[in-house]
């Protein structure tokens, strides 16, 4: 079975073809980040408008790259949520209509299931069960994955998501948008121990996160020290280390609690090299396997949606002709495959 995946939940237009036997055949991506950068964050209406412009050219490119025709598509998977409703509707409308025109089934994919399963697109995919650390622009959670479709949320953030904390801190430090990658680069020339930072929610048990206190702490530091030499880089480095340490502590707790042998990292913050290194080190030290998606599949992409959709379609799931867009869609409401 060959599945076309379409992702338009935020500011990336992604299209991919996944084949059950051949694996990922092609994927095309267009990021609008540079457009939203001028506004300091994603402008939903601009995002929706850009998806409508880019979708068909990306579909054409993807088919060309895969050297396959429309009639070779056996199913369509589109991101139905969570995300920006106007943006979601572009991919959902087109995706559902493509399925109708090809007379193949369509499935509405949960964006976070896409992120969660992205590491399985890599060679030597992890075996079930595993624990996934999902850290993206809108979410931070630890999830126990018993099988595809069987997710138990172990802990979530109480306030900001990890990526959001990176973005807001980068903005505060004048590093621009999107903030995560910019902050990581700035941190390279900083001393992470120059200033002290809290490790939020690590002093009490539990698997919940909170990043807003860290954000406030960072703001206070910046206001006090912004005119000092190298303060921007030092604060960026200290902030990044605080986030990474906190995530490592929580992952370790989740691994102990679930007795799982494998940790998977997914979502945009998973592109952070310090985090990847720190978790790999922890894995070696405590004896867990650790997997990540390739860097480009940490952030939004069509490949993860094609892959998640493939498994749901394979399990016989499909939807009627209704175009589904669910801006809020709690992961616990996600159905299992059976």
């Amino acid at each position, binding site marked *: 079975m060959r599945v076309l995946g379409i992702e338009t939940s935020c500011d990336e237009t992604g299209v991919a073809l996944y084949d059950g036997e051949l694996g990922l055949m092609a994927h095309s991506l267009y990021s609008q980040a540079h457009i939203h950068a*001028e*506004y*300091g964050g994603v*402008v939903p*209406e*601009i995002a*929706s*408008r850009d998806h*409508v*412009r880019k*979708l*068909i*050219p990306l*579909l*054409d490119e993807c088919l060309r790259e895969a050297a396959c025709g*429309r009639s070779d598509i056996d199913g369509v998977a589109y991101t139905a949520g969570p995300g920006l*409703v*106007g943006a979601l*509707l*572009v*991919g*959902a*409308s*087109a*995706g*559902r*209509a*493509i*399925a*109708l*025109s*090809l007379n193949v089934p369509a499935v509405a994919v949960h964006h976070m299931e896409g992120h969660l399963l992205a590491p399985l697109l890599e060679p030597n995919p992890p075996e079930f069960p595993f624990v996934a650390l999902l850290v993206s622009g809108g979410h931070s959670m630890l999830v126990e994955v018993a099988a595809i479709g069987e997710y138990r949320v172990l802990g979530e953030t109480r306030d900001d998501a990890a990526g959001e904390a990176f973005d807001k801190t980068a903005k505060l430090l004048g590093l621009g948008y999107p903030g995560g990658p910019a902050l990581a680069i700035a941190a390279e020339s900083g001393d992470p121990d120059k200033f002290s930072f809290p490790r939020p929610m690590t002093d009490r048990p539990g698997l919940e996160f909170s990043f807003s206190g860290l954000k406030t702490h960072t703001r206070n530091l910046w206001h006090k020290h912004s005119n000092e030499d190298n303060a921007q880089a030092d604060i960026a480095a200290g902030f990044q280390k605080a986030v990474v340490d906190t995530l490592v502590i929580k992952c370790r707790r989740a691994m102990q609690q679930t007795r799982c042998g494998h940790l998977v990292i997914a979502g945009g913050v998973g592109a952070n090299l310090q985090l990847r290194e720190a978790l790999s080190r922890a894995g070696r030290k405590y004896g867990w396997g650790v997997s990540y998606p390739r860097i480009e599949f940490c952030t939004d992409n069509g490949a993860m949606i094609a892959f998640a959709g493939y498994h749901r379609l394979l399990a016989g799931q499909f939807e*009627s*002709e*209704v*175009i*589904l*867009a669910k801006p809020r869609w709690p992961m616990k409401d996600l159905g299992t495959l059976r």
Partner: protein
Amino acid sequence: MSELLAIETSAEACSVALHIGGETRERFVHAPMRHAELLLPAVQSLLADAGLPLKRLEAIAFGRGPGSFTSLRIGIGVVQGLAWGADLPVVPVSSLAATAQQAADYSSAEHERICVALDARMQEVYFCEFLADGEGIVRRVSEERVCSPAAVGTDPDQPFIAVGNGFERYEELQQLATKASASCVDAWPRAGAIIKLALDWLQSHDPLPPARAQPVYIRNNVAVKPTAD
């Protein structure tokens, strides 16, 4: 004989029409915010009832706006998907022209301006003026624009027909409508009218590739860039 499908979702109504064997069949519902739910089942049943596979169509015509951004993009997303999947070309039609065509079809008055004002929210209307030609097809005689109801600037002393909910929802336009020779405030852009205008357009144009299924918003100032502080 050219077979066309038309989709119009730029306003509160959701409609689909099929032109087959020289006649037009239309499905129309006034159902605000329900386009995502209703549109594809309507397409499906219209094609099934006609026993016509999508691939046999000559093109897909669509209301390209202006109108409500979200519902407009649902329709255009569907047009893109159907056209791309079935490898069909597309035909864009102004949703204001489709609204004017409604009035032209019902009134026999020639040489009378048809003024269309559709509520654009934010105290503005989408506005444009049309004249019907000898064949009864509406032709645009002013620019399509979005403006405040007070700024439509049409000459109330030349005979005109007032069309669209803008003439009902804004006081300035209600007053203007009292001078109209006829008014039709509950006209919506409909897929049947899109078919008519698309057939006319196809007489002098080739249909366009699927990627050209794009909205015309008119209202383009949707966000302000932050100024450096």
